[in-house]
């Protein structure tokens, strides 16, 4: 993807993602969140053929179900009684609240998925290495650790399983103890290897002077234009939140989840913001089709 969304200036892209995170956190309306999820899924399919979704769908589904089930069991405030579960009232408000929380978290994760594709390590360093070199280095190492940790835990589990130590069998206490021991080896091991990474960075002169760029990122006119659009739609969305139009009111009175009047306007604005990358990729796709059609 040399063109498309990733070809824009890292600063523009980064600000877009910051905005996107804020909007999905503020926008507490199930209709809006559900549409956003769809937009983000389509974008992920275009970006990496759904690779991230396939890898993580299990975790995502668990998360949603967790909130969907747990919130009604804990939260009993509201006026619309659905049914009783073991003598506990299950409220419509709580179900909707659970849905909103789950969807909102899912949106956050999907935005991160897309962020990881667009803001690569070198763009991240470009943005922050000059302002905060030490912090940028630390963040880089930490981010590198996330997928590594996953792989390493699997490996530790494999090896320890051979000794009969496992987190999957035994009493709960024993399992928790084993789990903590695993995390302890994981940290010891990773710290040691982290030192090697730091050595390799130092050996190649990291931090000696101002870094230059292999890929020159020039802030061009199109970056400026996109930034203006981003700021415009972001401000409107925030206004929508402030006016209460992007939020479904639950307490004290449950609002109708159907959109009406002004809410439609802000719904469209918010969704357009979330769909900016999709529009840009879509344009590339149309152009490509059109070009093929001409020959």
């Amino acid at each position, binding site marked *: 993807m040399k063109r498309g969304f990733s070809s824009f200036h890292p600063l523009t892209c980064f600000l877009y993602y910051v905005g996107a995170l804020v909007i999905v956190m503020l926008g507490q309306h199930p209709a809006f969140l559900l549409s956003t999820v769809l937009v983000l899924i389509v974008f992920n399919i275009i970006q990496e053929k759904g690779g991230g979704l396939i890898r993580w769908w299990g975790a995502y589904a668990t998360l949603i179900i967790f909130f969907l089930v747990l919130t009604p069991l804990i939260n009993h405030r509201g006026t619309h009684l659905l049914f009783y579960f073991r003598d506990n009232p299950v409220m419509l408000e709580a179900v909707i609240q659970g849905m909103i929380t789950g969807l909102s978290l899912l949106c956050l994760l999907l935005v991160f998925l897309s962020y990881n594709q667009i803001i*690569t*390590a*070198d763009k991240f360093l470009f943005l922050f290495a000059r302002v905060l070199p030490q912090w940028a280095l630390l963040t*880089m190492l930490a981010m*590198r650790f996330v*997928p590594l940790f996953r792989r390493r835990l699997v*490996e*530790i589990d*494999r*090896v*320890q*399983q*051979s*000794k*009969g*130590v496992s987190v999957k069998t035994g009493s709960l206490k024993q399992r928790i103890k084993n789990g903590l*021991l695993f995390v*302890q*080896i994981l940290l*010891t*091991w990773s710290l*040691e*290897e*982290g030192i*090697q*990474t730091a*050595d*390799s*960075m*130092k*050996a*190649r*002169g*990291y*931090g*000696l*002077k*101002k*870094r*230059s*760029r*292999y890929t*020159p990122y020039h802030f061009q006119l199109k970056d400026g234009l996109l930034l203006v659009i981003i700021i415009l739609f972001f401000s409107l969305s925030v206004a929508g939140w402030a006016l209460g139009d992007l939020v479904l009111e639950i307490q004290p009175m449950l609002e109708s989840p159907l959109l009406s009047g002004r809410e439609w306007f802000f719904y469209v604005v918010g969704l357009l913001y979330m769909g900016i990358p999709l529009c840009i990729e879509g344009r590339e796709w149309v152009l490509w089709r059109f070009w093929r059609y001409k020959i």
Partner: protein
Amino acid sequence: MEILALQNLSFRYPDEEHWVLNNLSLSVSEGDFVVLFGPSGSGKSTLLRLIKSEVAPHGESKGQIIFNHRSIAEHTAETLAKEIGMVFQDPENQIVMDRVLEELVFGLENLGFRTDYMRKKVAEMSHFFGLDSLLNRRISELSGGQKQMINLASVLLLEPKVLLLDEPTAQLDPVAAKSFISMLRRMNEELGITVIMAEHRLEDVLPLADLAVILDKGTIVHSGSPRQLSAEIAHEKYQSYLPAATALAMTFSHEQEKMVPLTIKEGQQWLREQTIISKSLKKPEKKKKNGAVLLELKRVDFQYERDNHKVLEQLSLKVYEGECLSIVGGNGTGKSTLLRVLAGFIKPQRGHLKIKGTRSNKKRNEILKVGYLPQNPRLFFLEDTVEKEMEKAVASNKRLDHKTGKQHIDYYLESFHLKALRDHHPYDLSGGEIQKAALICLLLKSPEVLLIDEPTKGLDPMAKQSLIERLKRLNQSGLTIVNVTHDIEFAAQVSSRCALMFQGELTAEGTPDAFFKGNTFYTTAMDRLTRQTGVPEVLTLEEAKQTWRMQNS
């Protein structure tokens, strides 16, 4: 012209009595290929790190390191970062960025080179290394060998005058190691870069060297041209480092320094001039009858994900009591998976595992005690000292009471030469030591079968030799051993039966003799050396020593 010199260099870690490096002096000329070898813990890494001052260990040092006619302390940090490059042992941990191209230019960017200069350099380098198709890939998708090649390329882009390598092939499989080394040879021969390399596998490296240095306990024991050095050490303990041709020639004659063969080709020329008859070998032809079948796999299929290829396909295998079975094969052929199926950690999708004839999976630990030694024995240790871990192992073995357990620990620590390390943290041990410690933990559980994954990875030749002796002894005392390895030399020496894994199946099997002799590529260096040279074919130096008689012509 001299590019690098050590003058009476000594070094010790803070608060330590003994000197890790003791009064070293060495002179390296521009364009030299220097090979540095010696047992683990001899100070090779420390020496290389002292030369590369950014990663130098903390401690007290004496003497001087002269680079380009000035002490390294007088050079600017930039000059040193650019002109002395270093590649470390682990391919994975050196990588910072997540895409190949970003990783390649990491050093160039750090030193602030201009974009057009970098573009030109990268184009050049990727052409030289043939990296074009990899440039936009994610690093995590690459193999270990490719990763190490990227590390090398990234350092070379800075155009260093001296390239330091700390056991760069220790974590690679033999094929990847060979291609890495041949790339180094090109760097050295075509670009004239000075190379200083610490290495264990000398078979391919020694012939390239201009200067070979043996470091032991912090002092230079021998140094000189490879031939000169070979002649000197042929009858010492360092003999196990020598390439096959050299070791063979030096065992049977005292050649002049000039005549010492280093490569297989030279070795064959030397052999053609010799007359050798095989002694009427009174081989211990006891042709052991196969013992009872302990473990059996029947038409086993395994794949990790549904859409991926099958790692094991219709694989059948019997493990007999008392044998030492080596399963050899390239990387990614499913060897480790096979071992884990045998250990019962993963269940095959099709086919089944029989333990002593029964298929029950529940009480498998009562039927047959299996010990499993993983590729990375470090992850084996949960306690903070070696001894505590062993006590735990004893505690989990119901057949041992506390007191006999203690005696067992003492016995093993003594016979494995680990006594001094019993109170150490497992992570302070070297690769060979930690492997021994893990092996003891397994033995304390008195297993009947021992499964070992890639036992020789990262071991120096002397540690490898002692591992071979140890496993042989354990095998003779009745322990059944199954190992998977890509180290053919190891398999040829240790096993009573070998099997070749290829595309998820076991394609060939037999005694090491029948299995390897006659193979053109997939055999030991000693066999490649002796076949078709008119002398009796042998697999190992040991075999040659026993069966050959040299006639003085």
